[in-house]
């Protein structure tokens, strides 16, 4: 069964269409990544799933239940890691977990047990009595993830879980998310870090301007859109190469050539070309699909 089934979901804020008809599924036990530049409509989509924002049109089912009928029993099974840090600044680290747990109506003893193990899981035990304002960015993020797990949900939504963190902090979070995957939890993740998506996601949905551009496993997307290799060739482009019918994209100062067989391009480069060759990755797919222009 799919945990999330979204069909043609739309969201308008007044005249502005933030989400313009998005379809995707999150099958049980998988990690799906919603990838898109800023303003693509990722957060809006997550908020619609959580019932924090009403749909303008379309059909959205959560655990098979239409989102406007989602009630307590479904909400108990979802944990949310929002994009912004909305920890309770008036409470300590431990209270942030325990009091949040009480909103779920869980038993006190159970909450305490969960808080103990989550503080440990997220390596926050030493900080349990600190006010949250005194935590580093990485610790805050870990605490928010721990908080989302307090009721031991089957499905966890993570909106940009590692944005703005240093590499060490990101690796620590990735490890814990991989553990969640091992435990069989279903994850829906938004990010604009391709390495993150490539590492964690079984399936990726690329969105931009409120629409789905394409979806598939990281491997599928790469071979479909950017082959195996990329050559970034500085202008002026050698005449032979320019005439060829190799799949390419002009990005201003240089042109990207996508090929499965590197020799095909190498033979056409001539002696004086300045270029860089590398194995293509998700970032190339992303840039190819969403364009190379700067965003908001």
């Amino acid at each position, binding site marked *: 069964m799919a945990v999330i089934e979204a069909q043609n979901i739309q969201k308008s804020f007044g005249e502005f269409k933030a989400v313009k008809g998005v379809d995707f599924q999150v099958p049980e036990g998988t990690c799906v990544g919603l990838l898109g530049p800023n303003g693509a409509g990722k957060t809006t989509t997550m908020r619609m799933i*959580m019932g924090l924002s*009403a749909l303008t049109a379309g059909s959205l089912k959560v655990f098979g239940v239409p989102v406007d009928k989602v*009630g307590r029993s479904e909400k108990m099974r979802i944990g949310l890691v*929002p994009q912004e840090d909305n920890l309770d600044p008036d*409470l300590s680290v431990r*209270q942030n977990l325990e009091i*949040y747990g009480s*909103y779920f109506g869980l038993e006190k003893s159970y909450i305490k047990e969960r808080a103990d193990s989550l503080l440990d899981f997220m390596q926050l035990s030493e900080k349990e009595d600190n006010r949250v304002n005194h935590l580093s960015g990485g610790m805050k993020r870990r605490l928010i993830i721990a908080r989302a797990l307090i009721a031991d949900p089957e499905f966890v939504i993570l909106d940009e879980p590692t944005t703005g963190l240093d590499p060490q902090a990101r690796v620590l979070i990735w490890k814990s998310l991989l553990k969640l995957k091992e435990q069989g939890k279903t994850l829906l993740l938004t990010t604009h870090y391709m390495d993150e998506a490539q590492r964690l996601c079984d399936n990726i949905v690329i969105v931009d301007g409120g629409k789905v551009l394409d979806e598939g496993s990281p491997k599928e997307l790469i071979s479909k859109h950017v082959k195996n290799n990329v050559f970034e060739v500085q202008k002026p482009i050698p005449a032979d190469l320019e005439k060829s019918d190799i799949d390419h994209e002009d990005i201003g100062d240089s042109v990207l050539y996508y090929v499965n067989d590197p020799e095909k391009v190498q033979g056409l480069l001539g002696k004086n070309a300045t270029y860089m060759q590398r194995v293509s990755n998700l970032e190339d797919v992303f840039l190819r699909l969403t364009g190379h222009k700067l965003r908001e």
Partner: protein
Amino acid sequence: MSIFVKTVYALWYRHFSTWKSMFWSSLTSNVFNPLLFLFSFGFGMGALVESISIDAAEIVYLAYIVPGMMAYSGMFTSSFETSISAFARYYMQSYWDQVLATPAKLHHLIWGEVSWAATKAMFAVICVMVVGYVFNGLELSWNVLWTIPIMLLGCLCFAACGMVATSFATSFEIFSYFFTFWVTPMFIFSGVFFPIDRFPEYVQWLSNALPMTHLVDVIRALCVGYELTALAYVYKLGYIAFITALAYGVAYRNMKKRIFD
């Protein structure tokens, strides 16, 4: 325990636990506030008017203003808590988003705010009563005990009204209207410090529209022991309950539209 009570209690408890850490400052201000009022009015107004007559009964001025101050501090504290404080939690701290991502619903959330505001306000009211008792402005009787549930109703009412302001607010500036056109008039026109029959008739109309006027009247009747008819009790308390329900409904509808749209 029903889910509703359990969830509202959890939300109430969140506010209580942050308040606990500020208990002493809260106690100090709640005791000094009425002390300052008593001091100033005792020397100021009290020197001018020694007693006030209601229905031919003479009431010592101090005994007259203690019930007024009870109602006033309850009204002010609960109004403040669901307006400026709740708005800060909603707007600056994303507290509402945090709660609504859990199985807690908007009804629970608003009840959590309102019930907490009333609790905090009742603490202020009881401080006034203790200060009033110590300075011989309040005589203990069974009737005085009745003021507790009635004050609680009043505080719930003002808390719900504060919630209406919050549901409309887009910035903190908006609350200057709430205080200028709602809280302050209830301080001045509701008979906290002198009887409203000294106002011209059209002002009395305004006074009687304010739930505070009826609360002050009932609390004072119970504290100083003057008579109100049973009908007056029903009408006055019913009016307060009606305003509470109305305010709650408006706040809920506004907030719902605002949050989920």
